């Protein structure tokens, strides 16, 4: 009978499976411990605790990687800092990789050598998930998304009932009894993938209505908690639901709602995961679609309909990780009269503190709110009355730091702002 492997053995096996040239070189050997990443991290800026600086967090994992893969450690173990993995280390990894890093990538942008600290910590997340040490709620949220697919018939009626109610609201709002929130329409141009809940469906439905768009919903939502676990099985499975729906409905594009991680997964990871199947559609964020509508005159907007000062928070996944910097700013230029940039912004923007799945982990609310202080300070310095974010996780976190730090701002989504600004062609609004 095969002997039961210890937790450490399982973890080392998983680390070995995930070992790659990128991890060895770009994320490990290149780091010269210069410390330039330290004050780029919002956790460090907020806490001044060097133990949660990027280099300190990554070093916990790097030492173990070096113990296995750095030949120098056999001769000069003190030089490489190599260390054999222990069970205690795994508990420290939970803190370093899940609690004290939101995977925002700001340290990478500001590293002169481009050391990919989030890659190191994401690897740790994957190892911890494989050995059952990941935060339970992230696992539950990922598994719930999969359960939704496995029990589709059970959920379908609930979902359709919800959509019918939202459709009645839309008809009332736009003053047109023919306005629709289409579901499962084969041959539509767009498959729009929202999150659970009305707040990501209604503003988009209103915008699509005014643009005269051919669109449809399917049964599935965009959120993918598997990616926060760095669990390829769960995250691929969750994304595959959407890819299959796009193929089944023969759409030209998948449009991802205002959700940073869902966009990054669908836009950047999915084409690698499913490279052997034909991609007859492209993937865009609704940010890009709204920008296109405004630039091409497909919808008319009036900035006077948003008569308050607005600042914009660049979601890490949409901005730093996906390059969507100009689109939101063009939209804001068209839809508000008083736009105020926060500083720093674009690729040097601070994470709100809610990324990496942290908004879903109530046990760590204290550090999440503390790490949100640089963002709170940025918002306060603009003096804006509203802060717009195109990511639902960011909006949750911004809502909490708004209350915690007494910012007294309105937290909004971009689609909500655009829907407010629309000048209807039928003059009914």
């Amino acid at each position: 009978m095969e002997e039961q492997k210890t937790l450490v053995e399982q973890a080392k096996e998983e680390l070995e499976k995930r070992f790659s040239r990128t991890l060895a070189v770009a994320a490990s050997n290149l780091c010269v411990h210069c410390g330039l990443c330290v004050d780029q991290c919002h956790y460090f800026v907020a806490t001044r605790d060097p133990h949660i600086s990027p280099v300190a967090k990554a070093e916990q994992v790097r030492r173990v990687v070096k113990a296995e893969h750095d030949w120098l450690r056999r001769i000069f173990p003190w030089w490489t800092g190599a260390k054999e993995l222990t069970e205690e280390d795994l508990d420290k990894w939970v803190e370093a990789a899940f609690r004290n890093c939101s995977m925002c990538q700001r340290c990478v942008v500001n590293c002169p050598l481009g050391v990919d600290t989030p890659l190191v910590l994401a690897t740790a997340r994957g190892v911890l998930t494989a050995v059952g040490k990941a935060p339970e709620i992230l696992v539950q949220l990922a598994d719930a998304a999969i359960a939704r697919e496995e029990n589709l018939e059970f959920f379908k009626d609930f979902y359709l009932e919800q959509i019918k109610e939202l459709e009645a609201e839309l008809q009332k709002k736009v003053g047109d009894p023919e306005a629709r929130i289409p579901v499962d329409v084969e041959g539509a141009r767009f498959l729009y993938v929202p999150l659970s809940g009305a707040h990501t469906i209604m503003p988009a439905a209103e915008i699509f209505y005014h643009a005269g768009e051919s669109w449809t919903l399917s049964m599935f939502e965009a959120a993918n908690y598997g990616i926060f676990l760095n669990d390829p099985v769960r995250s691929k499975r969750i994304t595959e639901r959407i890819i299959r729906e796009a193929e089944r409905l023969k759409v030209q594009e998948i449009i991802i709602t205002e959700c940073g991680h869902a966009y990054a997964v669908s836009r950047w990871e999915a084409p690698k995961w499913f490279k052997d199947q034909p991609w007859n559609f492209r993937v865009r964020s609704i940010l890009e679609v709204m920008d296109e509508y405004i630039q091409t005159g497909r919808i008319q907007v009036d900035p006077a309909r948003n008569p308050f000062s607005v600042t914009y928070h660049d979601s890490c996944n949409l901005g730093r990780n996906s390059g969507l910097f100009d689109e939101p700013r063009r939209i804001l230029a068209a839809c508000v009269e008083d736009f105020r940039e926060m500083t720093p912004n674009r690729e040097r923007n601070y994470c709100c503190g809610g990324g990496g799945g942290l908004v879903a982990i109530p046990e760590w609310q204290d550090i999440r709110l503390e790490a949100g202080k640089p963002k709170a300070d940025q918002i306060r310095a603009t003096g804006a009355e509203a802060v717009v974010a195109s990511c639902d996780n960011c909006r949750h976190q911004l809502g909490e730091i708004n209350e915690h730090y007494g910012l007294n701002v309105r937290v909004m989504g971009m689609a909500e702002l655009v829907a407010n600004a629309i000048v209807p062609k039928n003059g009914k609004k």
Partner: protein
Amino acid sequence: MSETIKADLELNLQGLMCPLPVVKISQAIKNVPVGGIIEATATDPGVMADIPAWAKSTGNEMLKVEKEGKVIRFWVKRLK
């Protein structure tokens, strides 16, 4: 009807949006004994798919869902 199910814990999730209703239920289920029931109210229609999916995947049971205008009332039983 709601009076036919006796809840061990009542939870107000009104105003919370995805994923927070699931997060709160996941926390609260630990505060009822096995066989115990949570009665919760929410306003985000996403719970109508999310909570049954969460219950199914965690081995718990969604007993019933009712709608009273904008308020969704549901009962979840802890099975393990």
